[in-house]
Structure formats: C-alpha cells, structure tokens
C-alpha cells in the first residue's frame, strides 16, 4: 500500500498473473512506467489523482470501498465486495 503493491497483488490473486506480467498490466492501466510502481512519492500522487486510496489519505480523498470502486474501474476487473455493494444498494435484497 506504500506504492502499488496492493494493485499488483490484485492481478496476481484474481488473474494468476506472475509478477512481471502483473506489474506491466498495472503500469499500463495507470499510464506510468513499471519502475514508477514502487516509488512511494510518485505513487502517492498517482493514487490521489486517480482516487484509488492512499496510505495517508487526505481529507476528501477516496477511502475504503470508495477507492475500491475506482480500483475496479482503473484496473478493469471485478472486485467481489464492490459487486456486493452494488447489489446491496441498487437492487432489492433477497436472501
């Protein structure tokens, strides 16, 4: 979370991507270089610009589930709890 580790980990977890492929995918989606993924200074700016959450989130920055909505959009993946949130808030909940 200091840089882009959570984003790379998401691609490993959900798509089974190995590290170099996952880094390249995330860098491409963020429009930055792979070498910038591990730079906490650059990544803090990127994370704030894209509203994908930060280690020390400033007031008005996306937090928690708000950031995960944005991460799903930015990475082009479904996030389980985001889908669940949408279901709970946009459809009549049925057991």
């Amino acid at each position, binding site marked *: *979370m200091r840089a882009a580790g959570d984003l790379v*980990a998401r691609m490993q*977890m959900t798509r089974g991507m*190995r590290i170099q492929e996952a880094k390249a995918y995330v860098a491409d989606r963020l429009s930055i270089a792979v070498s910038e993924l591990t730079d906490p200074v650059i990544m803090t700016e990127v994370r704030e610009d894209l509203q994908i959450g930060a*280690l020390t989130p400033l007031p008005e920055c996306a937090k928690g589930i708000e*950031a*995960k909505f944005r991460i799903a959009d930015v990475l082009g993946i*479904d996030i389980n709890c985001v889908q669940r949130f949408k279901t709970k808030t946009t459809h009549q909940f049925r057991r």
Partner: protein
Amino acid sequence: MGKILTRMGDGSRVEMTAAEIQQDLEAAAQDAAERANVPSLTDDEIKYLLDLYKCKDRVVGVEEGKECCLTYDNMTSKIKRAHIPISKIQQLLLFERGLGADTLELAHIDYSFKQCKHVVQYEKPNMEQAVLQTIAPIFYGSMPNLGLYSVPDGPVANPGDMLPLGKIEESKEAFEQMAEYAIKDMVYVGSELYEKAGADGINFDTTAAAGDAEFYAALKAAEILHDKYPDMGIEMGMSGEFILGLHSEIEYNGVRLAGLYPQDQVKLAEQAGVTIFGPAINIGTNESLPWNLARSIVFTKACSEAAEIPIHANLGMGVGGVPLTLTPPLDALSRASKAHVELCRLDGL
C-alpha cells in the same frame, strides 16, 4: 578474511570461515537436488550466496525492479498474540495503513477451518465491515488441519492409533473420511466468507501438515471453490517441502500425492484452480543458515520454474532459511528474502 558472523537454524550466532560457508552451501544444495531430483545451484549462485554472507550490512534488500508483493498467514492473530487489545478490523487497518501491507488476511485465533465453521456467523460481519473500510485485497485464511477430524478431537477413528496395530486399510479409510469432512468445512467457510461477506479470496495455510490426505482435501476444496467462484483468489501455502505419505496411496487427478516435492505440488495446485502457491521449506535447527538457505533455494527455484501461477514462498520463523525463533533476526530474514526473490524469481513472499 576473518570469520563471518552468521547463525544456526535455531537463530543462535555462530562464526564461520568463508570456506566453511561455501562447504555448507554446496553440501545443502546437492542434498536438496538429489532429494527432489532437480538441478543443484550453479557456481555463480553459490558465489552469490557466499557474497551475501560476506556482506557486513545488517539488512539487505532486492535490486530495483525485483520488488515483489507480500501475502500473510494468520495476520490478525499476530497482533492478538502480542496481547494488544484491538479488534480484528482495527488490526487490518493497522496492517494496511500503519505497516503498508500489500494484502490483508482476516483470521480466527483458532486457525483451522473446522474451528472457523463454528464462528463463521461472527467472522462474516468482521469481513463485511473490513471490506468497506480497507483498500488492499483481503483473504480469509485458515488451515485444513486434518488432525482435528480424528478421535479425540473429531468423529473419525484415529489413524495414529491404528497404524501401530497394523490396521493399514482401516487407517487409509479413516484418512479418507477425515478428508471428506475437511473438504466440506473448507468449502462451507470459503463460500460464506467470499459469497456472503465479500472477501477477495481464501488462503489455505500450512497445507498437508497431516500428509497426503490433507493435501488431497485442500486440492479438492480449492477445485470446488474455483468451480463455484471462478474469480476467487485462492492461495495455498504448504507446511513442508515433502508430502508425507501417511495414507500413501491417495491421488489427485491420477497423481499419487505421497512424496511430492514443490515443483510437482504446484502443478496440482494449478489444476485445482489455486492462483497463488506458497512452497514451504523447513529449517534444520542444528545446521547453519547458509546450509538452510541453499537447501531452500534449490527446492523453491525448481518450483518457481515449473509454475505458471505466482509463487509466494513461505519465509518466516522456521521456514525458507529463516531461523526457528519467535523474533526473526533482520540479518537472517533480509538475506533469506533477497536470495529467494533474486535467485528463484519469486512473485512474492
């Protein structure tokens, strides 16, 4: 050059000459290669490891560009174990924003799926609230722990009692019954936490501690969960480098599980739908750390080369060349981490 300060597998400090370290590196690499029938370390790799121990830096790190992700086992119990009285959700927030963790893991203090089953209705609200507040991907983790399904802890006759009496067939049947109970619990807990509470994935930790039948149970549970939820992250961390053949004949997809080493374990994990695999190489406490590290790297490297999915090797107290101590020394932990990531081309730890 004078003596080099390193440690034994139990963490105690020991001074060795460069020649003694090289001898241990070569002997352990050869031993591991023969056991698993995989390539030993090259001369360059032995030199790399020797230089790592000659380096006087207290803490070392990977080269730029070789950074990797971290996943965890039993994450929320680590804080509980330190007797810090904060909730599990607070612990996850602490790991994410205080310690910068890449991934999170919610866990029950009694870290076995059988025990989690009893409290799953209390774990789900924790997960439901945690996913609203956190950003990093979050696993629900636990151990298959097949031993809990036999007498006196469970319903099945204990194979440990029957084997000394020569009741081989009865023992095998008992292991198979235990596996069926375990599969049911793992699928139940995994489904509840993923489908109903919003977890990103499930972590099977310390897999195959009770041998081949437990490995079978975890693979079957992973297969069922993957079929139910194709997008579920499934991590499988192992308990040791070698699958103990306590049943001895149980198979998964036509492959006998007893005696498999990590390079074969990962192929079955892939078939089951596992998305991250964690080989675990146990420490020999009466051998030096160079001996332990070289041995671990031979097994782990072969696994990483055979794998198509990410490999997060287990590096912690007692596995992966890290001493068996409650407080792993940074000199040892950082050297083991660097060497594994760089020589085995790991995707994470």
